[in-house]
């Protein structure tokens, strides 16, 4: 099969390195973003720029979107100058943004009526995963389309799973965000408890990382959290946005999420304290404020 000519819309912290990998792998790329600098850097690397999503769709057979939120995806896919206005029957749209499952299903349905094949394929792994092409990609859609796009996914990610029909990728991503949020809250409470009781939180991170409580947050973020390093990574405000979606999704499916709901409110408190630009592990600071205790390692006690 001939190689797809790929369109890429949304060249932010995630999209820019992802698009870069596709260029490096030899794909022809047509890009679009409102940020001129991001577009220029990819054009310099060999991509072609298009003025609108419609123009991207007119020039490509496979279109990838990587955008902040549901309304952005709706506008880019279905808006007046959107993909739908330029895409031909048989083309493929892969949305790699994290958005509401209900919106993903609707967008897929509307594009599907035009003969466009759709996958929802949100990712996990953050900016580091995007740069290293080690993203986890959770995909919703049909097997044939998935098989066709798989070589392209492999350029950007490692752990790539077809989870089920349209919307399934977003559902699994929502499950991922539930688990990560609750884990951050749990790690934060443990660190504050230990610190206030007089234990160096760095020791807690080191010990627990080997036990039953080991997890991605302790492993990737624990050392930085106890040093007060909350440079993003994945911004807290974006996780808060995801939790908004998740709570609505829980209501849609009538699944009570009592634990997530309280964690969601802690994220809301962090937003109220203007901490949305911190890494999501900055949720620690909310628990610290409640306890009147910072969970910081003391350099003097470090081995």
């Amino acid at each position: 099969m001939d190689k797809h000519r790929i369109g890429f819309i949304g060249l932010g912290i995630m999209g820019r390195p992802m698009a870069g990998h596709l260029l490096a792998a030899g794909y022809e790329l047509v890009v679009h973003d409102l940020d001129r600098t991001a577009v220029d850097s990819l054009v310099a690397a060999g991509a072609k720029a298009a003025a609108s999503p419609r123009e991207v769709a007119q020039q490509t057979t496979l279109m990838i979107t990587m955008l902040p939120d549901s309304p952005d995806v709706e506008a880019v896919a279905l808006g007046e100058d959107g993909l739908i206005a330029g895409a031909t029957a048989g083309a493929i749209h892969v949305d790699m943004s994290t958005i509401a499952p209900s919106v993903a299903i609707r967008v897929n349905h509307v594009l599907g009526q035009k003969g466009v094949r759709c996958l929802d394929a949100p990712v996990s792994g953050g900016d580091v995963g995007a740069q290293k092409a080690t993203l986890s990609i959770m995909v919703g859609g049909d097997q044939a389309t998935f098989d066709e796009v798989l070589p392209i996914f492999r350029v950007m990610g490692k752990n790539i799973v077809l989870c089920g029909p349209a919307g399934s990728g977003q559902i699994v991503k929502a499950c991922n965000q539930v688990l990560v949020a609750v884990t951050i809250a749990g790690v934060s409470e443990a660190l504050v408890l230990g610190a206030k009781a007089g234990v160096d939180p760095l020791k807690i991170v080191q010990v627990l990382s080997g036990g039953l409580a080991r997890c991605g947050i302790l492993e990737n973020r624990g050392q930085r959290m106890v040093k007060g390093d909350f440079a993003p990574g994945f911004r807290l405000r974006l996780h808060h946005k995801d939790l908004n979606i998740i709570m609505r999704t829980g209501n849609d499916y009538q699944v009570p999420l009592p634990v997530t709901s309280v964690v969601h409110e802690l994220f809301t408190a962090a937003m109220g304290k203007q901490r949305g630009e911190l890494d999501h592990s900055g949720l620690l600071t909310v628990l610290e404020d409640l306890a009147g205790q910072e969970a910081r390692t003391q350099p003097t006690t470090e081995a």
Partner: protein
Amino acid sequence: MQATPQTTRIGFVGLGIMGAPMATNLLRAGYRLAVYNRSDRPRVDAVVAAGARRAGTPREVAANADVTITMVTDTPDVEEVILGREGVIHGAAAGATVIDMSTISPRATRRIAARLAERGVAMLDAPVSGGELGARNGTLAIMVGGAEEVFTACLPVLEAMGKTIIHVGASGAGQTAKLCNQVAGALNNLAVAEALMLAAASGLDARRVLQAISGGAAGSWMMSNIGPKILAGDFAPGFMVDLQQKDLKLVLEAANDVGVAMPGVSLVHQCFNAVQRAGLGREGTQALIKAYEMQHGVQARA
């Protein structure tokens, strides 16, 4: 100038469980009334039989009224009856007033008020608390947002329907106050449910416990009201779980807007989610106890 039955014609849109008795109280106070309801119900006929004039659309109601009151279910309903194609906005004359007594989003309220203001129509948001009984007896608590002079002018109209009538601030403030009411109400409900659950699971006679604590520092309107209902296994609404959930969503949305955490509300919202999942969304809010009974396999009811 203050409203009087001689000088002020009133329109009323939405003759539901709350709206019909409220409209009847306005008739009783001597006001001329034009009314509209989406569907024809015996309730509507009764209000018409008591002297109200039936109109074909909200627009027609407003065209015959100096003050138009809306009392419908949710934000989209209010948008439809006020801003819709046959909405109040197309019938109301400049200088008229709209009073929305539904419980809806403060944000949407401010948007609707701004649209009406473009036509020279004033708006008060005036949601109520007190339930069907309060509507019938004319004893509702009414919390009002909007301009002071509009509030003062409309006060006699509100006094025909309620007792505790407080002007809390600018447009949207009435709705926000109502959401505060829902916060306290829902968490009171949760408190009653947990207390009765502990009593029952410990093998105590929940009836006696309720009797003992109702008069003390933990006593509340909610406890006195729903406590006996729970113990009697009476889950008829009062106030339906589905509507409570609609209000709690508005609470969380409004709290989100100002960045304040509501861990208690979010938890009770999820407990009600479990009640809805069990197919009990049309029961009264006292059915919250069933979320606990489902977890523990113990009935709190004596």
